[in-house]
């Protein structure tokens, strides 16, 4: 690891301006960043810590508002989240391990853009939005639109996620299932989030593709027919067909397509059974 400058700004404006430099990087929990720096993949000259910006905390006012610096562990242990958005609590229990969850943050988990992460597909399926601060003020963006490709988000270099807003679940039932092909705590080969809201079904695939993607063809086939086994079979085929999947160390493309078929069906079943 190369030496670097560590800046700890106390205001968002300072943070944004410190980030407007060659080779500057925001530092939230640091769980991914430090590994990439140790491996020499990233060699930042300046790290801008977001710790002193007061961006942590969970608020519920119909919607769920999560400060970007809230740790995954706080989110996991929040009684309000468990009551209103239990699918998030369930997903967090198998997200990496407790050591990582104690340190990693919600904003970092969304901005990192590693497709193998659990929160992006789940929050995209729940219709979550992020609030982004930059030199020209704030903007809002759907989590679904946050990703450009493998380890690439759509944020400018001097933009920061400050908050995540998740709409009330209402009558929506949702589930997130993932499948690992090596150890149980491996990065998933496939992660699928399904949200069923009346007739509407949202399906977001993670891990198998280079960024989380909505599976539109599968969604169309499932519309109003999530309980129909024939529709489910067709949707599983469509999902495996429409997702752009390549082989990697988790498995060949053909095998991962099989996992998409199986896990699409299992996740829809799980969502239909979800209590909410």
């Amino acid at each position, binding site marked *: 690891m190369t030496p670097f400058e560590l800046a700890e700004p106390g205001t968002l404006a300072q943070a944004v301006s410190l980030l407007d430099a060659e080779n500057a990087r925001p530092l939230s929990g640091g769980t991914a960043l430090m590994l990439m720096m140790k491996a020499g993949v990233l060699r930042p000259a300046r790290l801008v810590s977001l710790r002193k910006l007061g961006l942590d905390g969970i608020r519920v006012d119909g919607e769920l508002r999560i400060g970007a610096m809230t740790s995954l562990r706080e989110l996991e242990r929040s009684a309000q989240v468990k009551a209103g958005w239990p699918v998030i609590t369930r997903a967090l229990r198998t997200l990496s391990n407790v050591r990582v969850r104690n340190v990693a943050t919600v904003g970092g988990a969304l901005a990192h853009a590693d497709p193998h992460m659990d929160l992006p597909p789940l929050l995209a399926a729940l219709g979550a939005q992020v609030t982004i601060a930059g030199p020209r003020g704030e903007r809002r963006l759907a989590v679904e639109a946050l990703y450009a490709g493998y380890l690439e988000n759509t944020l400018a270099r001097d933009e920061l996620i400050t908050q995540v807003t998740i709409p009330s679940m209402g009558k929506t039932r949702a589930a997130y299932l993932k499948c690992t092909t*090596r150890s149980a705590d491996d990065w998933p080969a496939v992660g699928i989030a399904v949200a069923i809201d009346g007739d509407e079904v949202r399906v977001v695939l993670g891990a198998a593709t280079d960024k989380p993607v909505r599976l539109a063809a599968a969604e169309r086939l499932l519309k109003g027919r999530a309980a129909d086994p024939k529709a489910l079979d067709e949707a599983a085929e469509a999902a495996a067909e429409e997702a752009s999947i390549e082989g990697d160390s988790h498995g060949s493309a053909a095998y991962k397509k099989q996992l998409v078929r199986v896990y699409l069906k299992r996740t829809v079943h799980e969502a239909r059974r979800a209590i909410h």
Partner: protein
Amino acid sequence: MKRAGQSTETPQVGRSVPRLESWLKVTGRAEYVHNLRLPGMLYGKICRSTVAHGRIKRIDVAAAQAVGGVYRVVTGEDIRKLIPEPYYGPAFHDQPVLALEKVRYVGEPVAVVLAADPHVAEEAAHLVVAEYEELPAVYDEVEAVSSKAIVHDALKPAGTFPDLKHLKGKTNTNVALDFRLRRGDPDTAMGKAERVFEHRFRTQQVMHTPLEPLVSVAESTDSSITIHTASQSPSFVRIEIARLLGWPENRVRVRVPFLGGGFGAKLYIKLEALVSVLSLLTRKPVKISLTMEEQFFTITKHASTFRIKSAVTQDGRIVARECEVWWNGGAYADIGPRVTQKSGFTAPGPYDIDNVRIDSYALYTNLPPAGALRGFGIPQLVWAYESHTDMIARELGIDPIEFRRRNLLREGRPQATGTRMKDAALEKVLERVAALMNWNDAFDRGGGTLRRGRGIALGFKACIANTTSLAAVNVNADGSCTVYTSCVDMGQASDTAMAQIAAEVLRIPTEAVTVVHSDTDVTPFDMATLGSRSLFHSGNAVKLAAEDAIGKIDQLRQELHLPADAPIADVFKKKYGMRAGSVMGAGNFIPPYTPPDENGQTDNATPFWMVGATGVEVEVDTETGRVRLTRLVNVADVGAPINPRIVETQLSGAAIMQLGFSLFEKMQFDADGQLRNASFAEYKIPGFHDLPGEIVNEAVVAQQSTGPFGGKGVGETGTFGVSPAIANAIHDAVGVRLTSLPMNPEAVFNAISIKSGRE
């Protein structure tokens, strides 16, 4: 674990004494080389080869040397100025301290950058530029036999092992040992056989992943050198460094504190020659700490191919067996030729077979070197012969346990080498695993997409021979005792076991004994801590030393007219008139051994046999191929356990390690020999969530008549049967047979798909 009640006759041995060092470890005070910093110390960072096989055209160190804070950049040619022939290795003197003329695998050390700041050394190491003329490379162990790509121009046996002498100077070959064993008349028996079965099995290259990566520090003067190192073989390191430098052994001091795991990765020489040379070149202390990732380029476990063929009668008697095994040793032989021979002779398995042919080949390839890894080749062999055994039994319609019973190698019967089995509780172990698996009861086979199955496997291992251990025991004037041994405690709790043995002999509490860690200036020679040999060899040496000491003390009691049970402190007080003096006992243990003849035959192949069986129950998800172990049963003959609790954790720990090798661990290379997954993000080892729902461990009631208090080694035994037991259980569940490791979900799913396509 089930255990007998504590004996009052041996109050120290057979007791689950808590590990003596546990308090030091949990409070962060145990000594590890990792924490050692010496004044003026330089840190070395290794630059590694980027090609699998090539001639070195030039190494440009100018840019690295120019980085501020870099002390010096060293290449292989610099080392030649100090040591004209800087090649080392336990079997062959084939491995250069840093690459010379050629590189033979991706990741081979080519140069070292030295700096007082490790980050500077690391940065500068990226700037070393090496150019190669690429040569054709070979990666597969079977192809290596006939490949035109030759890894070493000429073979250079170290001279230590008689069966390698005929390879000296041999050119145009990648075969680093061709071990053969012949018994009876396998050709005739095969020709006349009622049924013949032939199968081929593969294992993959994997790594030890000790939690503490390899680390060594050297400090030197003009006439002496001290090496602080995480090594399982301090005595060997001293001999080899003295040989390389042309120095007497007493000018080389090797110190080893605790190790954070070894598993065979820290044997022979790893970083020790390099840090020694760097310290002598710079006249400063030098430390090299490998990263977890670099360990993949240092030492691994052999990938292997095993062709096995059996002639069997219709009623299930094995009459002949042919074994042909190819071991992928990578670019440097390390201890591979010993794996080839020592494991090779047990390749037919623990069965009574009159006609046997074994050919076992050590191969050089252009992959990272392979050596010893918890089992010394045995898990690769048991994988093949116990899968094969189950396949034959099912084909003949005989229950797999009954088939093994009919062919089992019984006490007193000759094994393939001709050595008669002694103190090998094969029968008991097989029957206990059957009983603990409730083999004769009805079994829930699952349904729908979740199918259940069960399987067992039985393996055995000969302990390495011919090896020596020495020990000394010093009884102090207050009756406390210090044990001096070069046995290394790498987490297996040998300190505690050695203390228990000494305490038992001296009739004092184990807690009154301390164990001095390996320091070749202080502790006597010990071959190495490997192959489950130490409890038996070092344990016997400690026992002899303690007996020597207690004999002297008993004699003093007589001379001083003290009663036979007078406290030791009273003996010294009466002799010296005050608290003074000590009594030193010495122990030298070397068990008998007969080297094999040209057909691999010997009347004494091993000091003792290890026996281990595994039973598993699995659930197979037929839609994804995912296999989950719901139950794991480990049964072993460890003789009489010295410390039952530690025996239990050794059995379960070994089995869990082998579980990773069975189900998902694999070093993945591309077509150019580049390792694709040299990190813990991409090379996964078992975690808590991979543990079977239930684990049962049992040591059968047994005695090793020649062992210390009836005990023998246990470190590897839990690995033997795990892989084939899982394969047999998968077959039982879904009717598909896997013959290649790892049995990852995709492999299982593909096998299920092929089968359902056929049906």
